[in-house]
């Protein structure tokens, strides 16, 4: 489609343009065609696994070893029917609901706490701000695996295992240094003139934060929200460690339950549920990707 459009544009251009410049658009057309062919080929290569996944959701389980190709030999919707039945008495929507609850709470927590922490680091001069900031950045360098066990012991002693508290509470305490840092950098780029003007008008920190800073860091908030949502939605290790009851599992754990190395693995159900698990995040991304690019692009700009 795009190639045709480009061709037509070049054709029209050729007619309107004066004689001596006729040759250039032709070469441009050739180049464009080559570009599109290359790009389409790359897209096909990159999208093939996803397309394979979609087609495979219609393969019966037993076909997986015998037919590695794209098109199912005996198409069936049994996989979807089975997946919608749920796992061990827990319906599928429950797992979606669990994932959504965790992800939405995490997004709210991260935005609320990181924005406040970032404001403090960027705008308030208090004792030890340098050390604390360095410590915060330091946690970025700390691999997650170092803190798994101490953190587990903590929540275990507080008897909070098998609740969502260990997954959500830390997000409300600005422990995600990545987001704090992102917002600190953003706030630092906002000219202080506005704060100062507000201060002269009698505004305190609360007022400045809510009326000046928060509206201005909107792109950073949106970027953070998108990342936070995607990361929490896909998180596997956290829920694996802290959630015990199968009816509380989020999607990434639930979709592994169709696959058991020691007995029968239901590959059909596995791909079907993987595809369904992918949808919300795909939709979320398509809806918000404009903001995502905006958020990243404006970060380099002043004011």
């Amino acid at each position, binding site marked *: 489609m795009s190639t045709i459009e480009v061709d037509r544009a070049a054709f029209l251009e050729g007619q309107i343009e004066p004689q001596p410049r006729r040759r250039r658009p032709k070469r441009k057309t050739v180049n464009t065609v080559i570009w599109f062919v290359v790009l389409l080929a790359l897209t096909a290569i990159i999208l093939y696994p996803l397309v394979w996944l979609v087609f495979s959701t219609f393969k019966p389980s037993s076909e997986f070893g015998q037919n590695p190709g794209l098109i199912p030999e005996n198409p069936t919707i049994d996989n979807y029917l089975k997946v919608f039945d749920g796992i061990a008495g827990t319906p599928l929507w429950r797992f979606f609901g669990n994932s959504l609850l965790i992800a939405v709470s995490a997004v709210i927590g991260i935005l609320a706490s990181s924005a406040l922490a970032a404001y403090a680091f960027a705008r308030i001069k208090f004792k030890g701000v340098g050390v604390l900031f360095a410590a915060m950045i330091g946690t970025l360098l700390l691999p997650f695996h170092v803190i798994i066990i101490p953190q587990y012991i903590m929540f275990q002693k507080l008897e909070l295992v098998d609740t969502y508290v260990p997954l959500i509470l830390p997000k409300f305490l600005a422990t995600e240094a990545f987001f704090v840092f992102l917002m600190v950098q953003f706030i630092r780029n906002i000219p202080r003139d506005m704060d100062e003007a507000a201060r002269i008008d009698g505004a305190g920190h609360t007022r400045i934060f809510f009326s000046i800073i928060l509206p201005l860091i909107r792109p950073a908030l949106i970027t953070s929200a998108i990342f936070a949502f995607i990361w929490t939605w896909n998180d596997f290790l956290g829920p694996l460690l802290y959630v015990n009851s199968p009816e509380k599992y989020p999607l990434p754990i639930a979709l*592994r339950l169709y*696959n058991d190395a020691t007995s029968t693995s239901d590959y059909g159900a596995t791909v079907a549920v993987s595809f369904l698990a992918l949808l919300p995040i795909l939709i979320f991304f398509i809806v918000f990707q404009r903001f995502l690019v905006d958020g990243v692009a404006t970060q380099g700009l002043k004011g």
Partner: protein
Amino acid sequence: MFEIRKRRTAVAAAAIGVSAALALTGCAGGGSEPAATYDPNEKVTLNFAFWGNDVRAGLYDQAFAAFNEEYPNITVNSSFLGFPEFWEKRQTEAAGGGLPDVMQFDYSYLRQYSENGLLLDLDPYLGTTIETDAIADNILGIGVVDGTTTGIATSTNAWGLYTNPKLLEQVGVAGYEGGGSWDDYADWMKQVTTAGSAQGISGGTDWTGRIQNFEIQLRAEGAELFSEDGEPGFDKARLAEFWEQGAEVRDPAITIPQQRLEEIYPLSGFDAAQTASELTWDNFGAGYLGNLGDSFTELGLVAPPVTKEGAKDLYLKPSMLHTISSKTDHPEAAATLVNFLVNSPEVGAIFGTNRGLPASETQLEGADLGGLDAQIRDYEESIQDRLGDAPPVPIVGAGTLEEKFRQIGQELGFGTLTVDEAVDQFFNEMDVVLNQ
């Protein structure tokens, strides 16, 4: 600006609401006091964890329902995961002191958890709470680490040779009879591969990629893979000899090429109906039938090739065990549950061979075995003469070594390693694992 501020306030309010709600639910899940003396009517809640799929989860639910008819005071909260995730979670819980009261357990982790004092010593309960009359001594011995019983085997499996009768009929070759020498087996595979070359069917897979085949060869010679102290029972020359045998079988005229196996991984050539035989544990049969699909209804199960006539090279391995956490608040109730899961005929009737062939005779009698299940039972009876004592409980890191062995087998299959390099790599890995 005002609008945004209002929205922020709403978000903040929601945030506070959510955290308050979570704090409340968190507090509601309080724990229970440890029981000083055992009261059979005391209300007790046990956590139980197993690995498996939703089918097994349904079976366990039935088993707990039967358990509660007999012991209404004990509530079982069960939780399940796939095998690798199950162990990832247990490792963290072990370090954090939060293991479930009763667990479905794997042989390869038994030594590590026992030596670290994470599992309850079951000896005081044997013969009393946990009945042992119906379990053979050599099976009870499987769960003993350094003289202490920490696990009870629920079920056993043995190394066997699966064949696919339907594929063999297609290519027109008679099924393998079982036993024979390794050369006989290779000849048979060659016959199948030649006859099935048009349909892309191979006789089997290069068996030198599996450490168990090496193990049964060593056992036939009176050695073991590893001793109780973790000393290897073989030297570089013996391992090289084993992999040299593979060099002959790795011929595409005999076995399926590694490249094709890679394309269908995690399924095996046998799962995908591309090979007509596979050496593996006998409890894999149901999985094979599931992956092969409805057009395949039966499998052949015969004894693996014989290394040395009259040797006791095979053994019964627990397909899984039950263990109790040493930190449980209710050891007596936990032991009652283990006894029920291991011995009760009802549980046998519910599970069949889902967890392997039941180890306890009372449970085996309760199980109504037909088709493949009966075939596995008959197979384990048929190899009685070749069954020796089980090897010592696997050393810590045995799982890692088994995986390394499999990877090296793959590389040998691709021809990216020579046998000498492979032997060196394996001994280096062994050095790391055994001396850590």
